[in-house]
C-alpha cells in the first residue's frame, strides 16, 4: 500500500486522522492524529497538535506532539510546542522550544 502523502502545495485546514503512515510535505492546520508513523518533511509547515507512533520532524511544527514510541527532530526541524514521548532524539541543528515529557 502506498503511503499517504500530503503534497507540498496542499493546504489542509482541519483534522487528519487514521491508521496508516503519513508524510506531510505541505501545510496542515488543526490536528493530526495517526496511529502509525508521522513524517513531517523539510518544507512542511504544521500548525497542529500531532499524535503518532513514531513522529519524525524535518520541517516546521507549531503545536504539541505526542509520540507513543519515539520523537525525532532532524537537523532542519523547527518545533515550538510541548513534546511527549518515551524516547526523544534531537539532532544537532534542530531548534526546539517547549516542554519535554518522557514520562520518567
Amino acid at each position, binding site marked *: *500500500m*502506498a*503511503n*499517504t*502523502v*500530503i*503534497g*507540498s*502545495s*496542499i*493546504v*489542509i*485546514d*482541519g*483534522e*487528519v*486522522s*487514521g*491508521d*496508516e503512515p*503519513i508524510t506531510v*510535505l*505541505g501545510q496542515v492546520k*488543526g490536528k493530526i492524529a*495517526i496511529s502509525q508513523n508521522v513524517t513531517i*518533511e*523539510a*518544507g512542511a509547515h504544521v500548525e497542529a497538535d500531532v499524535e503518532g507512533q513514531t513522529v519524525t520532524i524535518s520541517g516546521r511544527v507549531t503545536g504539541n506532539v505526542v509520540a507513543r514510541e519515539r520523537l525525532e527532530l532532524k537537523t532542519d526541524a523547527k518545533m515550538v510546542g510541548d513534546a511527549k514521548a518515551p524516547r526523544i532524539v534531537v539532532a544537532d541543528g534542530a531548534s526546539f522550544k517547549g516542554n519535554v515529557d518522557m514520562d520518567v
Partner: protein
Amino acid sequence: MASDETCLIGEKITVRGQLSGKQDLVVEGRIEGRVALDSHLTVEPSGLVEADVEATKATIRGEIRGTLQATRQAILEASSRVTGKVSAPQIIIEEGARFSGEIDMEVPLPDGIRAGGV
C-alpha cells in the same frame, strides 16, 4: 521538492475540514468538508468524499456526496456512486455508474428557452 508529485490520501485516512492545493490528488480514504484543487482529482473505488469539490478535472471511481465542480472535465467511471450536483463543461458517465442528482454542462440554450423549463 517537486510540486508535481502526486498527493495521496490513503485508504485508512480521514481528512475533516478544508483541503486545497495545486497538485494532483488521489483519494483512497475519506474526506469530509471542502476540497478546492487547481489540478486533477481522482477518487478511487475505496474513496469517499463528502464535500463540496472543485477541481480542473475529476475522475470518480468511488463515492461522492456533495457538489462536484470541474472546470474542464468530470468522469464518472463504471464503479462510481455520486449523489449531488455535478457541473463541468464536459461530463462523462460510464455504463454502470450510479448517479443521482443534478447535472449542469452550461449548455448554450436557444433563444427564448430557459434552463429548468418554463
